[in-house]
Each structure stands twice: as C-alpha cells, then as structure tokens.
C-alpha cells in the first residue's frame, strides 16, 4: 500500500514537471500556432541559472524568479529575431528554424556552463524526506507537485479568466478585428512568447532538483514535453494536463513493473495512445482526411 502510494506520488511529481514544461510549449502552439523546439533550451537555461543561484548563497526562493527572468529575456531576444518572421510560416519551417536555434543554444550553454553534471544545493527547507505509510518520500518532490498544480492553476486563470487572456484568445481567433479595437497584437504575441520561455526556465529551475542539469538534458526534456503536448492533443489546456499524467505515469510505472525494458514499454504505450487517438486524447472533433 505504502509502496503504491509512493510510486503514485513519484509519477505525480514527474507529471507536474512535464505539465509545467509542456504548458510553455502548448501555450505558443495553441495560441500562436508556433512550434518552438528551442523550448528545451529555455528549460536548460533555467536549470543552470537555478543551480548557480542556489550555489551563490543568495536567498534560495529567488532562484525561481531569476530563472523565469533569464529564460524570458532569452525568449524576448529570439522573439524579435527570428521567431516573429516565422509565425505565419508552415510548421515544417518553424520546426527547422527552432531546431537549429536549439542546437546553437545547446552548444553555447555547453561552452558557458561546462559539460559536467551540475546538481543544485537544495536549501534546508526542501531537503530531507517525509514518511508516508512508513515509506520515505523526498520532500522536494512534494514541493514539485504543489508548485506544478499552483502554477498550472495560475496560468489557467490568467488565460481563461482575465481580460488580458480574453484579448489574447480574441486575437488568436481574429487578429484583424482586435487590431481595429486599437490593440497592438504584435506586443501581445511577444508577451505570450516571453511568458512561454519564462515558464520553460521556471520549470527548468524546479526540475533541476530532480533531474540536475547537463548538456543533452534540453533535448530529453524537449522530447518528453512534445510527447506530452501531442499525446494530450494540441490546443487545449486539459489536453496538456492529460498528456502530462499519461507520460508521467507511463514512464514511472514502466520502471516499477518492467525495469529491464522500461522505456520500450513506456514509449510503446504512448505510441499506442497516438495510434488509437491520432489527434490526441482531448482533441476538438475534426474531420479526418
């Protein structure tokens, strides 16, 4: 019993991390129809910033806003050039451009932060374990679940319940009409990209305590985040939540049940989901061609 609960919590903490990373990706994808494969780079940048910040002795909780700002700044720079020119291009060109940029970012980070594995010095408040049904469970993972749920809710409120979110959704549906109301949609879309990049950095900072930071992590995280968004179904908040749960649970429980061939089972399960529902778990009904 205790073992099952601990494994479920493990899966949930991984799902929370996937949710945060996937949301950054899915926000630009669903709202701006832009595929950003540089998102893994934003994640890793956030991880490195958090590791350096936590090692520097400054107040620990500021590491997360710092990572958000650093990645958001990188996103703002890239948004001005060249992302902005590619919003109206086909997905293939966006994929190619952002993949090339992610290769450049990855190599720049390898240059700047070195090739070794960096693990953050967690503050005392987040270290240690709690006992659930006599099974030890790392406190940090509980913090991760809490942060994932809180930030996910916050983002949903921002996009779904505020005037700014309403303007944004209106601009997605009909950009021209929103512009006749005197709203600069270019700034609006730039803000969304910065928000998405910042979310990537923030999830990197949160994930550093669980996955550490090393070259190549950006690609691993990007792939998992893409799988999350796509398995869940593009363009919906609920889809990303569902995708994060599927991927998190599949990866965690396949390691418990089939330690030898864990990833084979997990990847096959995800591919199976995509075969059964080619447009994702939660998808608007579309005509199949």
């Amino acid at each position, binding site marked *: 019993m205790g073992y099952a609960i601990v494994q479920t919590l493990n899966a949930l903490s991984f799902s929370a991390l996937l949710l945060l990373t996937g949301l950054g990706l899915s926000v630009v994808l669903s709202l701006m129809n832009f595929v950003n494969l540089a998102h893994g780079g934003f994640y890793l940048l956030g991880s490195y910033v958090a590791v350096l910040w936590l090692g520097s002795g400054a107040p620990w909780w500021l590491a997360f806003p710092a990572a958000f700002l650093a990645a958001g700044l990188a996103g703002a720079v890239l948004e001005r050039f060249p992302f902005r020119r590619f919003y109206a291009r086909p997905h293939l060109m966006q994929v190619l451009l952002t*993949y*090339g940029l992610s*290769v450049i970012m990855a190599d720049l980070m390898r240059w700047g932060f070195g090739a070794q594995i960096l693990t953050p010095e967690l503050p005392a408040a987040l270290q240690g374990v709690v006992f659930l049904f006599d099974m030890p469970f790392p406190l940090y993972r509980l913090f991760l679940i809490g942060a994932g749920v809180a930030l996910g809710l916050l983002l949903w409120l921002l996009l779904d319940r505020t005037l700014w979110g309403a303007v944004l959704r209106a601009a997605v549906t009909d950009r021209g009409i929103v512009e006749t109301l005197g709203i600069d949609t270019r700034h609006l879309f730039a803000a969304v990209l910065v928000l998405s990049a910042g979310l990537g950095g923030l999830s990197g900072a949160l994930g550093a305590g669980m996955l550490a930071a090393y070259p190549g992590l950006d690609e691993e995280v990007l792939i998992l985040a893409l799988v999350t968004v796509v398995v869940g179904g593009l363009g919906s908040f609920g889809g990303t939540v569902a995708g994060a749960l599927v991927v998190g649970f599949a990866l965690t429980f396949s390691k418990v049940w089939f330690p030898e061939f864990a990833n084979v089972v997990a990847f096959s399960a995800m591919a199976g989901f995509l*075969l059964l529902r080619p447009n994702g778990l939660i998808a608007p009904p579309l005509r199949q061609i």
Partner: protein
Amino acid sequence: MRDIPLSRAAPLAAALLALALAPLLAGAFHLRFLAEILLLGTAVMSLDLLVGLGGLVTLGHAALFGTAAYAAAIAALHLGGNLFLVLGAGTGAALLMAALMGVAIMRSSHLFLLILTLLLGQVAWEVAFHWREVTGGADGLRGLPPLSLGPWRLDGPRALFLLSGGLALAAYLLARSFADAPIGRALVGAREQPLRMSALGYSIPRIRFRAMLAAGGIAGAAGSLYPFLNLYVGPQSVHWSLSATMIIMLVIGGVGSLWGAFLGSAIYLALQTYVSAYTDRWQLFVGLVFVLIVLLLPRGLAGGLTGGLAGSLAGVLSRRGRP
C-alpha cells in the same frame, strides 16, 4: 523511347565521371569519407521521398537505417560477409520496419506524425541498446567479417567507395523513377490537396504506406553497407538524433531535390570532420549554417543553385534566341 532531357543527363554524366575519377585521385582516408557521404546521402535521399514529396516529416528514419545496419551486421557475423546476403538481410529488415511504421503513420499527420515516428524509432533504439545478447548493447557489434563477392574481398577503401557509389547511383535512379511514377505524383497530390485526392478515389493511407516502403527499402540498402565501412555498428545508428541529423542534411542540401541530399550530407560531414579538428564548437557552426540556410535559402543549396543556374542559363538562351 522517351528523351532524357539534357538538364538531367548532364549532372548524371558528371556524377559518373566523379565516381570514376575519385578512386584515382583520392587517398584511403578520403575514399572512406566519400563512401560515408554517399551512404548517408542515400539514406537522406530516401527521407526526401517522404519529406519532400509527401510532406511527411518523420523523426524515425534512423530506425530504418540502423535496423538495416544491425541486421546486416548480425547476418555477416553468423553467415559471413557475402555482399548479396548482407544487402538482402539489411534491406529485408528495413522493409519490415518500414511496413510497421507505414501502418502506424497511415492516419497521422503533422506534429502527430513527427512524434509517432520518434516514439517508434526510440523503441527500436531501446531494443538495440538493451538487447545485449544479440546487439551487443552500448558497445555495439565489432569484428565483422569484410564484405565479399564470390572470390573477391571488398574491404579496401577503393572497393568500398565504388560499392557505395554504385549503390547511391542505383538508389538515385530508383528514387527518381519513383518520384516520376504515378505513385510519386499521387504522393505529391496527397500532400498538396488531400481532400481532392481522396475525392478522386485515391487512398491516402495506401499512398503513404507505399512511400514509406520505398523510402525504407532505399534507406535499408544504404544502412546494410554502412557497418562495413568501419567494421562496426553501434546504437547511435538507430538513435533519433541521427534522424534529426538526416533532416539537417536534407534541409542544407535542399528539400525536394533528390540529389541535394548528397550535397547536404557532404557539407554536414565535412563540417563535422574538418571544423571539429580546429574547435570544439563545431555544433555551433553546424547550427549557424543550418539556421542561415533556413532563413536565407528555404529550398536549400540545391534549390538555390538550380534557381540561380537555371535563371542565368535561361537568360543566356533567351538572348541567343532573339533575332
């Protein structure tokens, strides 16, 4: 008989000449390097059938290439390095893998297709990486017997180069005829106007399946010779990062022009080999070249070259044609 237009015959003759001259001019290292370019270029060209003609962007192409490489290596280890046996085993395994993948992608498109092929490719990688008894796990398979054809051993750089060159040429002609055949046209139609194509009675899943089989067969033939360049095959040849590298090569060379694939693979491998000798930052270089090409030459170098050359040729001809 159908006339072969000059614009198509001239590059073909140039390619034949280059294939004939290279063994006389280049040293052993460069011949092996050229053979690697030709084999990877062949695989990239088969990817172009899917991406360029069909608009099917897959991230699982290395799984086809690598499955063939492993099947060929395992066949050679157990039964000896007969060329036809090796080619048959590798191509057959790749066709099987392509059939699996082809069934899987019948109903998917866009990002879903990308992720689905990525997942299937990674399953293949996991198997290659963890099935130690058969694939050697992370170490891969070493000590392969050299290729042979009857009494001849094909293990010198010159033989390997000519073999790769012959394979690349045959694959190019095959891919060309696939692209010109009704199935190739139908594939383009399915990309451009899926609704109209199905209204005309074409089955888009069937077209996609056949395209995947054709691409898998060609990639498999190239993959089955690949291990014999260095008498080694490792799990990197199945990993998705090789699929991504193939896409980079394809874009550098030019999506949609079959011969651009060889250009792209030559440029990528040359960057990797020569820039990495001077600096550790060669990936930065590759990334910058790639981004610049996406920004400035969306049709790749092949598109840029033919666009420029065809433009100037047309200019010359029209001037001459005037009274």
